[in-house]
């Protein structure tokens, strides 16, 4: 048996970096469904929130025009996923990206200053209120950023880049810890 | 200044320096008719403004008198060598093959300048501040004394003149030629006749002095144009000092530095003139950058076309020739590219001797790093292609690179350095000196370099270009060459052409001075970064183009960041080096990444464009090949692939294989 056999492990594990002013922590690898609506179609935010987000706060995020992410901490079974994707029909199409995108949370008083080191997006609470989300570059890595609290952001990134972005954030947080 | 008043406002004096002048003479009668007319007078010195010209003339005369003594002064004045057109001028004209001799007389004694000079010359004290050698004055005076003809040569001596011999093809706009009459001096210093213009440059004896000049008639005005093409000349009866000084004036050398030092470095002269445009040129080149100046130089030197103007909207060297990272190399893969760039490399290797100008050509080696097996294979292929074309190439392994450049990040986790492709003959050249050297060389051969003159229109008639509208007026030309890379599309659009080119900005950077640690040029294979170290110690580096169309000569911080990151990835040790300055240049990004040197749909319009970010290394060959095309009408053998129509023919020359996406080349 090869010592390099495929094993299942989470991208960030239970990594955490905690200090008084900044805290970075991996979130459970639950589910991430990308929803693609029709070009020029209606806003499906409310529909998605109710039907497949289960009404959970911050479950539905805008990914791009006519595109959304529905995320949750609970891993779904294949059957549950299929049911969820069927629900979208015919309003939109869904793609299960649960294994493709990884989330972690950055919070603390210095969170805006931390993010500002990596992104050109204005992350002040006036321009980026709670619940708002966007795709942007953090350093060289594209990430989906959602404000989940006054001093808390959730960052979702392609799995292959997760460790790199974590390391980048940890380094950016160094001066605040 | 004494005398200036007497001469003020005497007529259309135009920018004279080193014997180049232009005098307007009304022609009221048929040229065949024998008659006498005043040809006006010349100015003979480089001047800052029009009003000082006449004063400068007077000063010259005075100084000659002081230096050479009373006898020489008399002699000079009698021989009118300072004001040759005041003397007898024989106009030889051959209408329809017949020969007719015309004489115009303007007695020296009656000329106000001469009179004033004679009066002032008796007081040597007043002449003290004027720093000008007799030899240099002679040079200028002789240039005038012998003015005329298309282009002619001879040995000159004080007070003497030469016979003129037409040596270029007949040009219809030139209505007559003339020679200064021989007014004195021993016979043995008479002229040498030269049958062909090539010989002026080929034969050592004939190289002593050559001028180009002509009469041109436009409307009711007659223009006399004279310019020094090339020259050294003997003044046999002069003492050593002036003889040596004369040598010092003509060529840059250790001796000239020494002798000029003796004279307090007051005698250096501008390396090129600042002429006003003539009304007509055989060839006009739009763009006074490296390529345009080189084209003019080779036109005059190699192809015998001296009635050439280079038109530059700003000052020469203000564009890309002064904005690049000074790298020269010929490490190209494709058969259409490699011989051309290698030809350029060969021209670089002899450039300084040829131009008598220190361009700091430094063949310090260009090393392209590779970071993966695939990249090694690609570089191996390129190296082999180079060897097959007779170009030097070495494939270095990691150990060899490490020995050469131990400070690189060899064990970078993402981009470990596996080796490099080295061209030892590659290197750097001081880019400003390239512009200046070519400008000086072209100017010496009679090319008019017209700065601060922007082309604002191209006048066409019946499928041909008749001339260019400029901010200094309309100038006619027989052929028009565009060498305005960066702005090629804009200039070509004046002639109704649409080019396969986008203008993009490329940035370059110079760091603070560091102790020498990079011998050659290194290019990063895993990002956009190339670097060399200047003789002052600064790192000269750059990266990729910014990627958006621009005419702004400045770039974006995103690219600055990328270049800095790539540089640091290659050489971690430079992470704290500060950047002193950065700038941008505008690139002609062609649709296949290769240049165009070709004719266009207009009969006498020629295009030199699309150099992307590789124009500097190509400067000599580009100039040579464009001159070849302009003079002979066919492409030079190394530039045959640079055809304008290759896009529609599908014969692209795509070194990077990126397709028709200008910002990816």
């Amino acid at each position, binding site marked *: 048996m090869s010592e390099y056999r495929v094993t299942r492990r989470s991208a960030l594990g239970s990594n955490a970096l905690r200090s008084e002013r900044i805290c970075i922590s991996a979130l459970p690898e639950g589910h991430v469904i990308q929803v693609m609506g029709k*070009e*020029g179609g209606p806003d499906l935010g409310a529909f998605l929130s109710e039907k497949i987000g289960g009404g959970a706060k911050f479950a539905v995020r805008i*990914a*791009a*025009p006519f595109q959304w992410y529905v995320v949750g901490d609970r891993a779904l079974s294949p059957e549950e996923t299929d049911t969820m994707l069927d629900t979208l029909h015919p309003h939109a199409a869904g793609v299960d990206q649960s294994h493709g995108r990884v989330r972690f949370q950055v919070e603390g008083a210095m969170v805006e200053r931390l993010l500002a080191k990596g*992104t*050109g*997006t*204005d992350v002040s609470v006036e*321009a980026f209120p709670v619940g708002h989300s*966007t*795709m*942007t*570059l953090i350093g*060289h890595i*594209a990430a989906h950023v959602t404000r989940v609290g006054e001093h808390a952001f959730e960052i979702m990134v392609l799995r292959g880049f997760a460790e790199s972005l974590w390391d980048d954030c940890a380094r950016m947080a160094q001066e605040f810890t | 200044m004494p005398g200036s008043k007497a001469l003020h406002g005497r007529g259309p004096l135009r920018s004279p320096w080193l014997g180049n002048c232009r005098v307007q003479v009304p022609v009221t009668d048929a040229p065949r008719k024998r008659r006498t007319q005043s040809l006006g007078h010349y100015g003979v010195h480089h001047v800052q403004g029009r009003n000082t010209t006449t004063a400068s003339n007077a000063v010259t005369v005075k100084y000659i008198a002081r230096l050479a003594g009373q006898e020489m002064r008399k002699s000079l004045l009698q021989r009118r060598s300072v004001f040759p057109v005041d003397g007898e001028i024989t106009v030889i004209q051959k209408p329809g093959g017949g020969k007719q001799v015309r004489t115009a007389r303007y007695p020296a004694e009656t000329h106000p300048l001469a009179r004033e000079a004679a009066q002032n010359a008796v007081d040597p004290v007043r002449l003290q501040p004027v720093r000008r050698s007799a030899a240099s004055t002679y040079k200028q005076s002789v240039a005038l004394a012998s003015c005329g003809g298309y282009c002619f040569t001879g040995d000159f001596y004080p007070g003497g003149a030469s016979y003129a011999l037409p040596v270029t093809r007949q040009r219809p706009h030139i209505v007559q030629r003339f020679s200064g009459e021989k007014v004195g001096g021993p016979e043995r210093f008479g002229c040498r006749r030269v049958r062909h213009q090539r010989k002026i440059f080929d034969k050592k004896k004939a190289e002593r002095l050559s001028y180009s000049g002509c009469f041109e008639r436009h409307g009711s005005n007659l223009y006399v144009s004279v310019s020094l093409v090339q020259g050294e000349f003997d003044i046999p009866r002069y003492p050593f000092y002036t003889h040596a000084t004369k040598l010092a004036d003509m060529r840059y050398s250790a001796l000239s530095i020494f002798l000029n030092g003796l004279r307090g470095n007051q005698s250096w002269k501008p390396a090129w003139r600042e002429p006003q445009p003539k009304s007509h040129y055989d060839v006009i080149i739009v763009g006074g950058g490296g390529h345009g100046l080189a084209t003019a130089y080779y036109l005059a030197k190699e192809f015998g076309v001296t009635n050439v103007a280079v038109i530059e909207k700003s000052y020469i060297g203000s564009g890309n020739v002064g904005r690049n990272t000074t790298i020269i190399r010929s490490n190209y893969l494709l058969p259409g590219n490699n011989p051309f760039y290698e030809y350029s490399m060969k021209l670089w290797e002899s450039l300084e001797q040829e131009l008598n100008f220190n361009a700091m050509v430094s063949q310090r080696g260009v090393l392209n790093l590779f970071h993966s097996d695939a990249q090694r294979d690609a570089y191996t292929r390129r190296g082999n292609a180079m060897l097959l074309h007779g170009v030097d190439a070495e494939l270095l392994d990691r150990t060899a690179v490490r020995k050469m450049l131990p400070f690189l990040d060899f064990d970078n986790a993402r981009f470990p350095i596996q080796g490099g492709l080295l061209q030892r003959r590659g290197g750097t050249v001081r880019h400003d000196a390239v512009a200046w050297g070519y400008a000086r060389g072209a100017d010496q051969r009679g090319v008019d370099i017209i700065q601060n003159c922007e082309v604002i229109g191209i006048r066409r008639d019946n499928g041909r270009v008749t001339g260019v509208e400029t901010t200094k007026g309309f100038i006619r030309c027989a052929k028009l060459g565009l060498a305005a890379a960066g*702005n090629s*599309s*804009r200039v070509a*659009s004046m002639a109704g052409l*649409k*080019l*396969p*080119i*986008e*203008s993009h900005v490329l940035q370059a950077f110079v760091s603070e001075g560091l102790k020498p640690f990079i011998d050659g040029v290194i290019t990063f294979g895993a990002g956009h970064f190339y670097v060399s170290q200047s003789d002052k110690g600064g790192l000269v580096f750059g990266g990729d183009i910014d*990627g*958006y*169309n*621009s*005419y*702004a000569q*400045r770039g*974006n*911080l*995103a690219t600055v*960041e990328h270049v800095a990151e790539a540089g640091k990835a290659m050489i971690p040790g430079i992470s704290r080096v500060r950047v002193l300055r950065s700038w941008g240049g505008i690139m002609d990004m062609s*649709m296949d990444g290769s240049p165009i040197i070709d004719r266009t749909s207009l009969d006498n319009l020629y295009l030199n464009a699309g150099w992307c970010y590789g124009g500097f290394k190509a400067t000599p060959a580009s100039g040579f090949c464009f001159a070849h095309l302009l003079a002979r009408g066919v492409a030079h053998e190394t530039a045959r692939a640079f055809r304008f129509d290759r*896009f*529609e023919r599908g014969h692209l020359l795509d070194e990077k294989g990126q397709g*028709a*996406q*200008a*910002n990816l080349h």
Partner: protein
Amino acid sequence: MASLVPCPHCGMRPKEEFTIKGAAIARPGSHADANEWMDYVYLRNNPLGTYDEYWHHTSGCRRWLVVTRDTGTHEISASCDVTVAVKTGVAA
């Protein structure tokens, strides 16, 4: 152009997030002749002044935009989604 580029969907974003395609010009129809394709594929007006370009917000909303920019000053006067641009006739 500063380092910030306005995206109609995301607001001001750094230039690094974008990929630049180039001139926003109309693609010829399927029956276009060789000259039209030559013009579309290779030839560019390349003006000094206002210029419409396709930009892709690669690291953002991943939408194709038409950015109207001055090639002499780099100032961006407008940007819109390519679907809007097509509707208003800016691009095709």
